[in-house]
């Protein structure tokens, strides 16, 4: 029967099923399968994208910006010198219902307590469910930061911190801080299937989870009772398509409306396609080549400056990023507040570089290693190719750079131990706070062996500025401090900053009001489809 049917289809030879019913269905050609549907226990963008429609957080990022707006909390108060945060929760927020679970109550303080206790308290009954790894919660230092979480009443929750922490509210808007239903958790626990909490999500978000078929698709339906009002779309479908060129074909054929990570090679034809609107935004990231300042000759500022002038950044941007990147010279991308517009990039000037090297007593060059990641990263599409270009530029100064690479996990570990002389790496921002770059990547604390400051650069004035800014909650003051810190960074040149990548999102013309997320997420609330 199959064979006969197949023959028939071959003869008939047409596809494009008529758009079913009259409902608005937006199809997103997502790049892979989510690990599961709980953002607390995962760190990948794919999973965050898939859980975004379902959940809300106390505070949230305004769509398409890094601004924090109220979410499930209507407002919050900061007191006790920035150590106590009181959240006043929104009333009348309905939980989704599924075939097996019907909520009996609205969202309240118990849900907030459940969501955070699960991650925080090792003896919480849900702590070890689904592997019990809460990477983001731990990476953001929440476990050490929190003093207590108290339920004041049904709609008031108080977080006490051990020390003032300016980025705290931004952290609460991150995906790991999503609020899950305590009632649903109890329901699954009683049924003896607690892990289902993480596989079949119940949230408060704009879309209700309908069904997931691994490696094939995820389906959502608009939540009629959403507290911000029902979405304009009726259905949202993630059609999982791991190959970017295939996704582009589907986009062209109208089989999907939005795709995430186009091939640089396809950008030119996307620009000219009348049905496609190619959106772009500078990403919240930085790719860099760090000099290990604890090793000779990179302990000498002149050498680091010389190398900054010796490498042709423009060639890298053209050949490797193919237009999908802008040259970097500050450690934070221009999309983040407090970006210092006054600092000057080092010019490409091999002669000046030679002079500086001669001053440092290295007129004949030296030998060094040059590390290149084995994998594509959002901020660096091809580290090996960059290494080849850098190698050629340095050779002109008599510097012999040997390209080194390791398996990815190993690479990161060794670089953080400081085994390299020069290593490429990069960073994608989590919460749009400058601290998330300047302190994490360049602070003294992170310069220890195993820390994420792989230049191992500990500059006291810089560190003082960044620490002071971290403890202040006055944005104007913080901006000033961070600008000064960036000036020090440029002068000291611990990195050869390479680029901030530009992310492209091809979107079909009938899609209305899709916005690119500065965090690299793909969000579909507030989006509409033209007929």
């Amino acid at each position, binding site marked *: 029967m199959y064979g006969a049917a197949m023959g028939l289809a071959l003869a008939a030879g047409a596809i494009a099923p008529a758009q079913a019913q009259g409902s608005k269905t937006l199809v997103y050609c997502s790049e892979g399968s989510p690990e599961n549907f709980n953002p607390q226990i995962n760190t990948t963008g794919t999973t965050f994208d898939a859980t975004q429609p379902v959940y809300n957080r106390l505070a949230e990022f305004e769509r398409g910006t890094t601004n924090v707006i109220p979410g499930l909390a209507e407002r919050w108060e900061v007191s006790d010198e920035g150590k106590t945060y009181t959240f006043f929760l929104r009333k009348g927020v309905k939980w989704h219902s599924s075939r097996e679970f019907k909520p009996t109550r609205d969202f309240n303080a118990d849900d907030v307590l459940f969501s955070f206790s699960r991650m925080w308290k090792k003896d919480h009954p849900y702590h070890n469910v689904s592997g019990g790894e809460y990477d983001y919660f731990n990476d953001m230092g929440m476990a050490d930061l929190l003093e207590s979480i108290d339920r004041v009443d049904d709609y008031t929750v108080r977080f006490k911190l051990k020390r003032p922490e300016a980025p705290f509210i931004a952290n609460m808007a991150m995906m790991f801080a999503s609020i899950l239903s305590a009632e649903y958790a109890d329901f699954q626990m009683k049924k003896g299937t607690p892990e289902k909490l993480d596989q079949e999500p119940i949230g408060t978000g704009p879309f209700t989870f309908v069904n997931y078929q691994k490696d094939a698709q995820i389906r959502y339906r608009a939540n009629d009772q959403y507290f911000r009002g029902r979405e304009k779309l009726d259905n949202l479908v993630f059609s999982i398509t791991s190959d970017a060129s295939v996704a582009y074909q589907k986009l062209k054929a109208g089989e999907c409306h939005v795709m995430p990570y186009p091939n*640089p*090679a*396809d950008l030119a034809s996307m620009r000219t396609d009348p049905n496609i609107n190619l959106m772009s935004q500078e990403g919240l990231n930085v790719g860099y080549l760090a000099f290990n300042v604890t090793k000779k000759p990179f302990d000498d500022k002149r050498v680091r400056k010389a190398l900054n002038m010796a490498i042709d950044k423009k060639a890298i941007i053209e050949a490797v990023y193919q237009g999908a990147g802008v040259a970097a010279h500050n450690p934070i991308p221009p999309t983040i507040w407090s970006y210092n517009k006054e600092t000057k990039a080092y010019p490409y000037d091999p002669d000046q570089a030679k002079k500086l090297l001669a001053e440092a007593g290295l007129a004949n060059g030296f030998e060094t290693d040059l590390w290149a990641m084995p994998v594509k990263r959002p901020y660096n599409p091809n580290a090996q190719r960059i290494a080849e270009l850098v190698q050629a530029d340095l050779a002109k100064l008599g510097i012999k750079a040997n390209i080194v690479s390791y398996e990815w996990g190993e690479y990161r570990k060794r670089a953080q131990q400081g085994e390299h002389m020069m290593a490429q790496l990069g960073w994608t921002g989590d919460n749009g706070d400058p601290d998330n770059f300047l302190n994490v990547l360049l602070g003294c604390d992170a310069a220890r062996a195993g820390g994420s400051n792989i230049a191992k650069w500990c500059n006291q004035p810089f560190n003082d500025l960044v620490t002071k800014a971290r403890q202040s909650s006055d944005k104007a003051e913080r901006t000033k401090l961070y600008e000064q810190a960036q000036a020090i960074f440029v002068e000291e040149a611990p990195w050869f900053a390479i680029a901030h990548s530009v992310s492209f999102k091809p979107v079909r013309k009938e899609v209305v009001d899709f916005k690119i997320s500065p965090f690299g997420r793909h969000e579909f609330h507030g989006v509409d489809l033209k007929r």
Partner: protein
Amino acid sequence: MSATDDIEMMASPAKAAPPSPLRTFWWSFAENKGAVAGLLVIVVIAILAIFADWIAPHSPTEQFRDFRLLPPFWADGGTLRFPLGTDDIGRDILSRLIHGARLSMAIGLIVVTLALGMGIVLGLVAGFYRGWIDVAIMRLMDMMLALPSLLLAIVVVAILGPGLSNAMFAVSIVVLPHYARLTRAAVISELGKDYVVASRVSGAGTLRLMFSTILPNCMAPLIVQATLGFSTAILDAAALGFLGLGAQPPTPEWGTMLASAREFVTRAWWVVTFPGIAILVTVLAFNLMGDGLRDALDPKLKR
């Protein structure tokens, strides 16, 4: 020695003496036009591979940055300077294909030699000694055959790290059971024959018995398998290259070329088409020749 000498020498019929076995073999081989065509193609590819440095118009890695994604010469915008066009960073595709022939031939040769060598030893040992050692070896071969071969190759490469030599090793491991099984079967069927018994009685040592008495008489099926093995080796190595696990760029291995050209498939058909044709033609030639060899060496199928 070129192939034409070969053909003339072998094809000139001897007048008086009875035909030598080699000559009978050649006659029956030459009867098969497809096989001869395959042989000719292989000879041409081999010449291209050996003299790639002189034949190829450009270096396979030289980047002509001003001539990116140029089409072949007969298409609009193409030039004879780059007869089959250029790839995304301006390298000449023809030159890369010619140098790639060298790699593909080397891959075939090395993989087959490795697999044949290991397979013969395992097969001889298993067939000759029988008993538990036979069971152990053959069960191991069964296990390897029960795993999808590409999956096994991928795991081996994942362990050793991507790269051409590791990919070749992985492919030889994967095809090894075929040779071992074949050798064992041939050894077992030969063992009972009179000449073996005679030589055993006359006191020939085990090694001598294995390698110089039995082995030469089992060679026919192995030669056929080895020829066909060239094509499997080239295909499998290209598949690994296509999955990004074989030769690493900028090595002009055909499968790797296909993999890195894949994102340009809608924009520049030639970067995808030509490496594929190169693989197809080479593999087809080896298969044609392998078929001819089998017909010529296996009297049962000869009609």
